[in-house]
């Protein structure tokens, strides 16, 4: 029988056994990577962030307290990291946001950066739909986006997301509602009509 995440993490914390840590990485590297990917739309940046999160977990294992699920703990670290980087990038001079769209194509800069392996945004079939959804997600306020990604894509329950974000459950629910409401207004209109509206923004 496989051990629970919290058990593994505690085992790692107490005994320092690296196999436990490796198992945790195996379980969470794909979800965490995609969490960052949906925040940044940049494979390289999200791999960097993901690696940094696991390193933080490794370094600060003694500080781990099994107050909630391990996933919640991980996403909390991830989100804090994301906020740090997001802010530092905003403040840094002469930098271009990877979310910024390049030229007419509507593709974000992040998607153009060369990376190993196939990037879904390079697939012409999904490109249109994908681009629309990505623009819609990018138009959300950061708080709404974080919450939506945690709940909708990472599959956290409201309570877990509330723990990860450090806000009450009611706030998570209302954030999800307003995020979906905004997305509905963008995504539920015909793409052709949406284009001028989008450029207007």
């Amino acid at each position, binding site marked *: 029988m496989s051990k629970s995440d919290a058990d593994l993490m505690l085992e790692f914390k107490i005994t320092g056994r690296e196999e436990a840590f490796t198992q945790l990485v195996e379980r969470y590297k794909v979800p965490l*990577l995609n969490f960052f990917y949906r925040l940044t739309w940049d494979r390289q940046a999200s791999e960097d962030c993901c*690696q940094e999160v696991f390193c933080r977990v490794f370094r600060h294992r003694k500080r781990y307290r099994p107050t909630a699920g391990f996933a919640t703990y991980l996403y909390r670290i991830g989100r804090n990291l994301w906020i740090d980087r997001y802010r530092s990038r905003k403040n840094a001079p002469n930098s271009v946001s990877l979310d910024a769209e390049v030229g007419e194509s509507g593709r974000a800069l992040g998607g153009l950066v060369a990376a*190993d*392996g196939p990037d879904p945004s390079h697939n012409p079939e999904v490109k249109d739909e994908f681009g629309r959804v990505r623009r*819609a997600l990018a138009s959300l306020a950061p708080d709404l986006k974080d919450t939506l990604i945690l709940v909708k894509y990472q*599959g956290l329950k409201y*309570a877990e997301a509330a723990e990860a974000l450090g806000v009450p459950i009611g706030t998570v629910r209302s954030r999800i509602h307003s995020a979906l409401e905004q997305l509905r207004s963008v995504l539920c209109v015909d793409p052709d009509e949406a284009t001028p509206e989008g450029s207007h923004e």
Partner: protein
Amino acid sequence: MNSDKKTCDEIQALLFDRAAGQLDGEARAALEEHLGACADCRKFADDMAVTAKALEAVPAIAPSERFEVALRKGVGAAQRRERLKRAAGLVVFAAAWRRLREFELGAAVYPLVLLALAYVAWAMFTRAPEHPRFVSSHKGPSGRLMLWRRPSRREAKKMLARIETAAENELPDTPDDPYDPEWLELIPEDIEPYPPVVERDNGASVVRKAPETLQDLERLPEPKRVERTTLLPLPSGGPGGSALAQARYATIKNSKRHLRVVLTRGLLWLCDNQNRDGSWSAVDGRRGRGARSEYSDSEVTAAAVLAFMETGFRPSTKNRASRSLLAGLTWLVRQRQGDDMFAPSGARQLHAQGMVITALSEALRLTDRDALRKRFRPDLEKACTALMDQQSASGAWGGAKGDAELTAMALIATGSARSAGLSIDAVSHASALAWLDSYQESFSPGVYAREGIKVRAGKNVSYATIGEVLGSPARVVGAGDRLAEAARELNRHPVVWESGDFFRWYAATLAAYRLNGDFWQGWRDALLVQLIPHQDGWLRAKKTKANRGSWRPVGICEGGGRAYATAMSVLSLAASCGHSPVYGSAK
């Protein structure tokens, strides 16, 4: 129309939840029903479905080779840094050691210094206090102040031995002392002849002669202990009436002398401080009447009458304690309000209800008199119905969110009602257990409590454990069982006097008894060590002190007053003899 609109808003909120993948079965049914009837909402639902589908179109990526390499590098760097830190620590220690040697102290000093360092490290880091407020300040076995940690199991045993010796040497032992522990001898006069005992011996029924004298009572066997990993059976009626009272009395009688003294003094204090109407007040002293407290008089009175019943008394008029008990019960049944609750609405209304149900059930179980049974039973049934009505759909008590403490209380109350012969809905019992189970799951029990960081959450987990232990059907708890692991945590966080968590101590004592074995021993030692020395006037011969025999309300139970603290302490100590309203005790 207006109300329709409101419903549509709610339905749209549910549609958002559905798109986020957070809808449960019940809400889903309500949603489908509404969508069948409302075209606007159907349109909205279609929009939401489109949005959700579009969002799902975002594909996932897999980590690349570069990521794996970078991760290995990062972890390697972290490991190197740790090794470096450790080495730096050693260097600093070695430098300090060399500096120490330069003082040219005698060779005998070095081991002493090392020992002192080791002791400081052990005292400070082995058992960090759970919460600064709850740091215990009692004296350890060697008489030192143990500021940093609570006593371990072995130390608790030693402390208990010291208490026993002190009791032997210092307790007043005069026959005319009004606090004479032999006062308990009054009880047998009240008890009808013990019925013959039928025992099964190798399939054949053997009828044993009923005990008639005190000596016979003392020879009664100890409550049967099953193996350490088996839960004691839940009640199926069990013995009641005089047999139960006799058995309870016998265990108190057979307990150590100091425990008898402590219990007797507590009960006497309760007798002395009962109000004229039969109740006990939640607020002490002159400001009693009119002053407000979150504890209701009903809860305090229920705890006090329970304290009498758990020590072997029955409602009657034969001796002082029984009369007190009868008056308390009579006052209690008069407190039923229009909504069948026994306490005014407030934070502790359900607690009070649970205590009252437990008290009435015990009274029903203990008395042999039909008049009293007829008096208590209808009220008890109504009280139970009112309590069951408060159970939420999730199975918990305490609103939609649920409260582990209230749920444990409700399980104790319904358990005692069942043992008094009332029928309790099995479905509600099972759903309460299921809720506790899932609640524990969400805190990864056994692991969480060991860390003991958030006292509040840790406490709730321990209530969830208590509820599960008390409510689960009899079964064998395996070695790796979550229940056993979680219950072990009860021992690791035993009674800390300053917290004043009287109800939890009582409930945990019941749970520990049912779990038996190691848990039970450890818990009982910790309980006795904390409760006995904190009784006012313990080991003092002076009789003038008004509070002698009572316990001071501390910590979270300050609002309950001295009567509550005393009643709950007596109750916990009686439970430590194996008495419980929840399972069939002392068969």
